[in-house]
């Protein structure tokens, strides 16, 4: 019998008099000891499933149909007391953001102790048991850890504590909602290994929610792909990945850049997944508006979830077409090498260093400085895309900010188009910078002034001083820019709040392009965006490269994205460049241990490789990470 079983589970939201189905006819059966992956983009409803299991739906949402049974008991309509009994004990959760998931004013020991006491352990024994459990997740010196506060731990350490707490009650089911998304790549791999280890040891059933299809394939036994609240494909992981039977699943694969396979053009699905307000208006297949295999029947009929192979179901009217019609896209030819005539580097960095002063008491010495960037040197040529990869704290953002002039270097030289611009206070340097280099910021939320309309944001460069242009000129230019970045002309009158994340990023790019710079610094501009939106932006950048001949310094932690986009790459570790060179060469044959560890931490395309074990085997043993 299945441990957790959903039958036609439907969750609705009452919005403005309408009842919108945010989860529609979800079916799955999870047996003891199995791992089920729920894959989808943001807004697909994956977290809603987790909340339904916990019976903690936000206000206005309710289960309007179907059933959800845990160990034979219906979770829907369960009493509060029974729910509290189950939560933490038989059903446990692992959260997405480990650093904020623990109470900042209580010690680890206090929170763990409270949890263990709730599970029925005598107070006196809680300490020892907590140490045991922390040891099981490979945390060093667990006894000290108990008296520490969450802010003293790193993200990875916090997540291990949370995993330990989740498994403390030997639960039958663990729901992990994007447990590694907020962590660095290498830490991600470690955490996944720990989770799998615990799962096997306790024979726990796991629901693993993620947006990363490849990761899910390596980790899960079965996968369910969710789109706009509807399960579109469900089946054994290797089958779903190896021979997908739904166009969306296939498109997901083709939208995600790969690290080792041939470098193919990404399919960018148009628009984006419909949001809640639009659910009600769609008849027929919810994916149809974006589907490359769309037929008139698809808009009228809602495809049922039918079995296309043993244990493998798909909600498509034409499942067999997925394999035959959606072929691999063409290979992207030749990463542009710096052509011989472009001898002069646009950006030349020599011996760049940056130290940050920690808050000092006046009796302490200067040794307390944090070294963010240490002796970094590189060049960037016209029409070149150079990537800087590293984990958080590696200094990549600092390098970006130093290049643009937002921070002042402690040592080193920055040459922009032949001119020395190291001194940020020099007016001529500043003017030269303004004309040559621009930055695209990471967070679309804070990068656009919420009080300005799009037209005024993108033409901000033409606003004041000697570059002041009349309004008519500005509106015309805004329209040109919007067309170039692929947005409709009526977007000019909107406020940032009315745009989606992907659209905001485009406006970001448009603003940077307005002053016709020669070089763009893109700081993590696609992280946090859905894969389809990400693909759109990456293709946009490639198009800009062809049409405008612009150079880009692309900062990212995502190796696959860098490989897709960049001609050369610099690998940064703790503020220093450990390896650099043409992207293909570096990624195919890494020389430095850190680069190797980074590459090993990314789930490979090849399913025959036992990735989880690979990452665990200690490729990182040589480094003090």
């Amino acid at each position, binding site marked *: 019998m299945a441990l957790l079983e959903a039958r036609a589970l439907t969750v609705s939201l009452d919005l403005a008099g309408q009842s919108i189905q945010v989860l529609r006819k979800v079916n799955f059966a999870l047996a003891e000891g199995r791992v089920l992956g729920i894959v989808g983009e943001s807004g697909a409803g994956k977290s809603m499933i987790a909340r339904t299991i916990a019976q903690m739906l936000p206000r206005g949402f309710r289960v309007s149909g179907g059933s959800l049974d845990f160990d034979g008991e219906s979770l829907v309509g369960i009493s509060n007391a029974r729910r*509290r009994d189950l939560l933490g*004990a038989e059903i446990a*959760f692992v959260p997405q953001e480990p650093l*904020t998931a*623990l109470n900042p004013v209580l010690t680890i020991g206090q929170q763990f102790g409270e949890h263990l006491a709730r599970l029925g352990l005598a107070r006196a024994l809680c300490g020892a048991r907590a140490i045991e459990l922390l040891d099981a997740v490979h945390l060093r010196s667990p006894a000290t850890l108990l008296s520490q506060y969450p802010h003293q731990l790193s993200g990875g350490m916090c997540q291990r504590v949370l995993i330990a*707490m989740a498994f403390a009650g030997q639960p039958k089911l663990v729901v992990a909602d994007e447990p590694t998304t907020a962590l660095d790549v290498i830490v991600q791999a470690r955490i996944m290994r720990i989770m799998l280890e615990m799962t096997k040891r306790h024979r726990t059933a796991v629901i693993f929610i993620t947006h990363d299809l490849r990761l899910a394939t390596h980790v899960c036994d079965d996968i369910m792909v969710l789109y706009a609240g509807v399960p579109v494909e469900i089946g054994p992981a290797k089958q779903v990945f190896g021979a997908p039977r739904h166009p969306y699943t296939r498109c997901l694969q083709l939208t995600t850049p790969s690290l080792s396979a041939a470098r193919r053009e990404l399919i960018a699905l148009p628009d984006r997944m419909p949001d809640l307000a639009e659910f009600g208006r769609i008849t027929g297949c919810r994916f149809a508006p974006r589907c490359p295999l769309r037929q008139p029947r698809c808009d009228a009929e809602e495809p049922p979830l039918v079995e296309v192979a043993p244990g493998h179901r798909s909600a498509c009217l034409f499942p067999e077409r997925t394999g035959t019609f959606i072929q691999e896209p063409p290979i992207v030819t030749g990463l542009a090498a710096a052509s011989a005539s472009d001898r002069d580097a646009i950006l030349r960095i020599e011996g760049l260093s940056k130290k940050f002063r920690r808050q000092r008491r006046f009796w302490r010495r200067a040794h307390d400085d944090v070294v963010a960037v240490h002796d970094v040197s590189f060049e960037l040529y016209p029409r070149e895309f150079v990537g800087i990869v590293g984990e958080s704290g590696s200094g990549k953002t600092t390098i970006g900010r130093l290049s643009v002039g937002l921070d002042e270097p402690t040592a080193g030289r920055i040459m922009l188009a032949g001119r020395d611009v190291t001194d940020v206070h020099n007016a001529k340097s500043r003017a030269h910078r303004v004309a040559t280099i621009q930055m695209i910021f990471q967070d679309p939320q804070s990068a656009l002034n919420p009080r300005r309309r799009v037209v005024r944001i993108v033409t901000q460069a033409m606003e004041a001083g000697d570059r002041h242009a009349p309004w008519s000129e500005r509106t015309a230019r805004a329209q040109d820019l919007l067309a170039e970045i692929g947005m409709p002309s009526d977007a000019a009158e909107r406020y940032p709040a009315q745009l989606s994340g992907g659209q905001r990023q485009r406006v970001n790019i448009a603003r940077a392009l307005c002053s016709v710079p020669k070089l763009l610094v893109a700081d993590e501009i696609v992280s946090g965006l859905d894969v389809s939106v990400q693909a759109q932006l990456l293709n946009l950048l490639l198009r800009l490269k062809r049409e405008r001949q612009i150079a880009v310094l692309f900062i990212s932690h995502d190796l696959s994205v860098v490989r897709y986009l960049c001609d050369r790459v610099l690998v940064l570790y703790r503020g220093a460049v450990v390896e650099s060179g043409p992207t293909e060469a570096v990624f195919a044959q890494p020389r430095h241990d850190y680069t190797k560890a980074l590459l090993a931490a990314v789930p490979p395309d090849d399913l025959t490789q036992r990735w989880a074990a690979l990452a665990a085997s200690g490729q990182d043993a040589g480094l003090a990470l």
Partner: protein
Amino acid sequence: MSDVVRVLGQRFIAAVPILLVVSMLLFAVLRMIPVDPLALSVPPNATIEEIDKIRHDMGFDRPIAVQYVVWLQNTVHLDFGRSIQHRDSVAGLIAETLPATIELALFAIVIASALGLAGGLYLFHLRGRPGEVVADLASTAIMSLPEFLWGLLFILLFGVALDWLPFIGRLSPAFSRPVHSGFLLIDALIDRRFDIFFDALKHMILPAFALGLSFSPPIMRVLRSSLHDVYAEDYIQQARLRGIGEWRILVRHATKNAILPTLTLMGVQFSFLFGGTLLIEVIYSYPGMGNLMVEAVRNADLPVTQAVGLVYCIAVLFINAVVDAIYLVLNPKLRRR
């Protein structure tokens, strides 16, 4: 513990330059008074020579900077000079009146904290319900009347109309004041005179309540607002997912976090409260430092004004330091391990 000592030490050191500047400011500002400080304390038929002599004796004929230095030297030796009006030592006057003000202020602080914290929790408890609007309006209304008007209203209601509580002075005329520390409640207990104790308490209720009530609404609001903020945090949701009940979440997890910004506000409110004792004392004819100050200001008694102003500042700095220390104890992020 060492962190607390460190913070208090830092505050102490930082307070010195502040107090220096404060005293200089006071000195300079008070010299700007259009009234001749001597005019009120000199007999009307004094001759010019006599006036000049008195002026010289009091040191008013020297340049300001010198006067200040002299004052500073004396202050360090705890000699605050002599009151022009009373001819008594200023230090003595302060020693007589300060304990009364402190007693009143402490009582009011306790009331303000109790009302503020309880009110805040209650407001938060009412969230989403119709009662919230009423409670909210009530807190705005309380805040719209300054402390001295509350004081007057209390006198009208409880003192005059209902005649439940006394509203003049510290003690009924029938009793004689026990004098040990200056703190009436403590002195009464030392002497084991419970009748005096209760009488003193009765006299303090109205003024302390007026003070405490008027300064509690901001505390209520900030606590409610902080609780809202905390409840939106991830770790509260995670606690629920571990099966922890709502009551325990409120008490053990949420309040400890929400109290921090509330504490900062409470520190500010209490400094205001200490200043508010001035008016309350005037209204209730309470023999504290406030009355001393008002009288001194009216009579242009500079030494007293100067010294009392300084004492008020010291009190504010002290309150801030204590609040900072408590904040440090409660907020682990600030500690250095």
